[in-house]
């Protein structure tokens, strides 16, 4: 039971991260490594705000805005300084490592006895007694659902439509009289805002911050996006965001299953990589076919 809850909780938290990765990888076609820095950035901001005694609810918008700022920096480095996409992300990820240490104040910070979005008067009132076991999962579900719905709504606006266009064919964005660089910056901001929000919730679920939590975050995000979008291939618009979250839960489920089955932990990463490759090849989800149908 605890493990199933754990898979659901972690899966949904990383689901929010995966929504961010979905924007950069699938929509913008931008390999964004900022994620490895913006996920712990959200966590660092969160533990800092909580130890300062601020109400836990504040951490959610704060982490989103913080992550958005980090994403905007990656975008500015790429667009204004004309640094290649991959390198822009690496630069920002590296910078965030130090920033995260500053913000959190140490390589690890515990908030075991502080109020969090899961552990406070209101939530404990709604989930009294035995129901408390599922309160964390319930709160995470609510936030994930809300994030998904907000993203769906945004993607249906004019601004969202333009974001889809810039990844699809950035020439047309220029033709429409819009600065495509600006659209990319906006996209990276929203993406990293979501990633950071994931980090914020993760820190509160784990009741701690640890500097290395971002390591490999982008891989988990990519795996979730690819699993989700390949398994539910015929799905469009709002439902694709759901598939991404489901992909993330499935990914975490696979890890748990491998662990429960007693597979040598040393082999888990290799197995993950192979699994990842197989799904990738089966779904033929490699680069977009350039030019696309010249007939």
């Amino acid at each position: 039971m605890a493990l199933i809850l754990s898979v659901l909780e972690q899966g949904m938290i990383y689901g929010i991260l995966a929504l961010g990765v979905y924007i950069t990888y699938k929509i913008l076609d931008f390999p964004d490594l900022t994620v490895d820095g913006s996920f712990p950035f959200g966590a660092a901001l969160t533990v800092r705000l909580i130890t300062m005694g601020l109400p836990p609810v504040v951490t959610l918008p704060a982490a989103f805005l913080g992550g958005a700022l980090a994403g905007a920096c990656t975008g500015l480095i790429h667009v204004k300084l004309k640094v290649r996409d991959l390198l822009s992300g690496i630069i920002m990820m590296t910078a965030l490592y130090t920033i995260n240490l500053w913000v959190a104040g140490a390589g690890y910070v515990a908030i075991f006895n502080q109020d969090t979005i899961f552990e406070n008067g209101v939530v404990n009132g709604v989930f009294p007694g035995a129901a408390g076991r599922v309160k964390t999962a319930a709160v995470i579900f609510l936030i994930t659902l809300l994030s998904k719905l907000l993203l769906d709504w945004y993607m249906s606006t004019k601004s969202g439509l333009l974001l889809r266009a810039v990844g699809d064919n950035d020439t047309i964005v220029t033709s429409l009289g819009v600065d495509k660089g600006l659209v990319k910056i906006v996209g990276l901001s929203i993406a990293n805002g979501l990633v950071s929000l994931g980090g914020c919730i993760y820190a509160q679920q784990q009741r701690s911050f640890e500097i290395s939590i971002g390591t490999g975050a982008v891989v988990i995000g990519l795996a979730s996006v690819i699993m989700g979008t390949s398994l539910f291939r015929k799905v469009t618009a709002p439902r694709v965001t759901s598939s991404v979250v489901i992909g993330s839960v499935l990914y975490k489920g696979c890890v748990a299953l491998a662990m429960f089955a007693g597979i040598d932990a040393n082999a888990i990463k290799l197995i993950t990589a192979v699994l990842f490759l197989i799904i990738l090849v089966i779904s033929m989800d490699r680069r977009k076919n350039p030019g696309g149908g010249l007939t």
Partner: protein
Amino acid sequence: MRKSSFSMWKGMTMLELKGIWKNYNPGSVNELCLFQDFNLTVRDGEFVSVVGSNGSGKTSLLNIICGSIEIDRGQILADGTDIGRQKDFLRQRRIGRVYQDPSKGTCSGMTILENMSLADNKGKPYNLGRGVNKAKAGRYREMLRPLNLGLEDKMNVSVGSLSGGQRQALALLMATMTPVDFLILDEHTAALDPRTAETIMGLTDRIVGEKRVTTIMVTHNLRYAVEYGNRLIMMHEGKAILDKSGEEKARVNAEEIMGIFNRISVECGN
């Protein structure tokens, strides 16, 4: 009905290129001086066909007008205002452009409705308002119907699944959905089969005629250059070596142009 929807049309603007210099790869062995003091005036409502061999500078000319290539010296005047130093996206608010590659004028991962909604918003802010206005779908459908390509029944079909001709027709429509001062056609029929190319040319002529928009069309097809438009320019090594308009243009025939074209091609050893 069709006329009234374009009553706000500004249309017909004069375009002047004055003393344009463009040097590629300056200082290197590959240095190529394409334009040296190039001048061109396109008058209100003119439909100019531009032909020329590869490397003659015809596509560069379009890129210079649209701001995709920066010029070294000179002025680009739109109705007297110098837009030569304006960012490409700002300039293109007044320009509609269709490319050779049909995938450049549309978004393949989006539906026809979404593509048209995007194009319809050109010149207005892309804010948090509804991206796709279902109420406008009817109007879009009416715009697609005269194309006779059956696109009006595929509003929710992803553009990536359309044929090249269908996509190019859509691109042309999208480029001229909102009022633009200039229409730039960059070999927009070159990637299509001959029959589809004819259809697209017919559509082009109709749209240009209806909207009387100042148009510059680069083409490889000498027959199209002769048949369509009211001015013909032949480019060679960054210069307009032939420029016929009005009555003169009406008299030229494809054979004559072909003759000149072959002669210059032989001269440069093609």
